[in-house]
């Protein structure tokens, strides 16, 4: 019984939901489509609860760090930022009906910490790319030369200065993007979709059980 409830029924649920949702994409029957629309809402609501995992995992990890007195300051900052935002936002939403996207304090947290943090972490990559361009990108083979050449032409083509250097650079950039870039990315898409469909078929047939996680 235990294997049936623990493994086989979840697998059957997955297959049933997959076929049900696939049917919605292929059939045009109003009652079926309306039911599938409700099904999509069900999945959206259930999927939203996955964020509880992120909160719990972060809390467990960083509370343990504080208990073991390793990186106490950093972990404390994380826990305070997360839980103060959560508690205040939930209180205002649950008891006063103020949406988090309109709540003043939560929006200040977004503007003061989330937005600049996300932007800056990715913008630092500009420096790393420059350093890599200078120290690591070497035209050691025909392929590497081709990569660097295409990259340089595209970089100059997308900046106004490229057209000032030569009127041919924007045309070359357009040709590189329209022809070899399209060919390469089309191949990546074609190969990728075959791999994804194969993976999904393996999941449906039960050969791929990684999604079930640990344990029996």
């Amino acid at each position, binding site marked *: 019984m235990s294997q049936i409830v623990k493994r086989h029924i979840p697998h059957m*649920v997955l297959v049933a*939901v*997959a*076929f049900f*949702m*696939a*049917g919605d994409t292929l059939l045009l029957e109003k009652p079926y489509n309306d039911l599938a629309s409700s099904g999509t*809402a*069900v999945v959206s609501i*259930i999927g*939203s*609860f*996955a*964020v*509880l995992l*992120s909160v719990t995992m972060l809390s467990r990890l960083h509370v343990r760090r504080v208990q073991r007195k390793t990186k106490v*300051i*950093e*972990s404390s*900052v*994380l826990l305070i*930022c*997360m*839980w*103060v*935002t959560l508690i205040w*936002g939930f209180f205002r*939403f649950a008891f006063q009906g103020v949406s*988090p996207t309109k709540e003043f304090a*939560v929006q*200040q*947290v*977004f503007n*003061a*910490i*989330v937005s600049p*943090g996300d*932007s800056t972490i990715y913008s*630092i990559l*500009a420096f790393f790319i420059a350093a890599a361009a200078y120290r690591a990108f070497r035209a050691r083979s*025909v*392929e590497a030369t*081709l990569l*660097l050449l*295409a990259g340089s032409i595209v*970089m100059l083509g997308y900046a106004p200065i490229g057209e000032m250097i030569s009127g041919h650079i924007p045309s070359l950039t357009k040709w*590189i*993007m329209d022809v070899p*870039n399209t*060919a*390469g990315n*089309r*191949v990546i898409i074609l*190969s990728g*979709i075959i791999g*994804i*469909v194969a993976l999904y078929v393996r999941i449906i047939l039960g050969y791929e059980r990684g999604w*079930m*996680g640990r344990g*029996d």
Partner: protein
Amino acid sequence: MGAIETLTILAAAAITLALFSYLWRENLAYRIAEHAYIGAACGYGVLVAAESAWRLLEPRLTQGLTYWYLTAVIGLLYLAFFSRNYFWLYRYPTAIVLGSEIGVTVARSLKTQFLEQLRMTATITFPSPFPFPYLNSAILAVGVICALFYFYATMEHRGPLKYVSKIGIYFLMAAFGAAFGSTVMARISLLIGRLRFMYFTDPAYYLIPVAIALLIVGIVLDRRKKPETA
């Protein structure tokens, strides 16, 4: 501008400079800023996700469809992930979400990303200048076929197949070069955005001399430390 908006901008500038300090070397200010970002982002994300889930659920509950509470019960089963004995309960909401993802994407992916891509390869998409109007499309088709042969692993790449896959890799390298150029453009755009914020937002720019002063102090202290540790 109110006091809170001023504090918000100052905090944003401080976070920006603390994260940029990683370029000097990893330091406590960077780690604090990074952890603050992770915590705040997680908290904000959970709030918005919870609100949207409630917006989907509440109209149905007010219509008297109380069986919709089941969706919340099934969603809470995600927390079984942390249990040793009841971990298997976590598989139910995962199965529903994953099954839905499979159903929604498979049939449509096969059309859009397989059949349509093959159709677009076989048709004239990018006209070339006179006198070879089909040249670009022909080169594109040749490039797709050759690059596909590069990934063909059933036969060893010998003889004519070796040259075909070589042409394929050249097309792929040009595509990767274009991706590299685009990525550089994206990152520099982000940096421009951050610098414009720091230089032109009142009162963010007041922190720039403070940051420079702290950097100089840091460099001096670093230089003094080095002879002792050598």
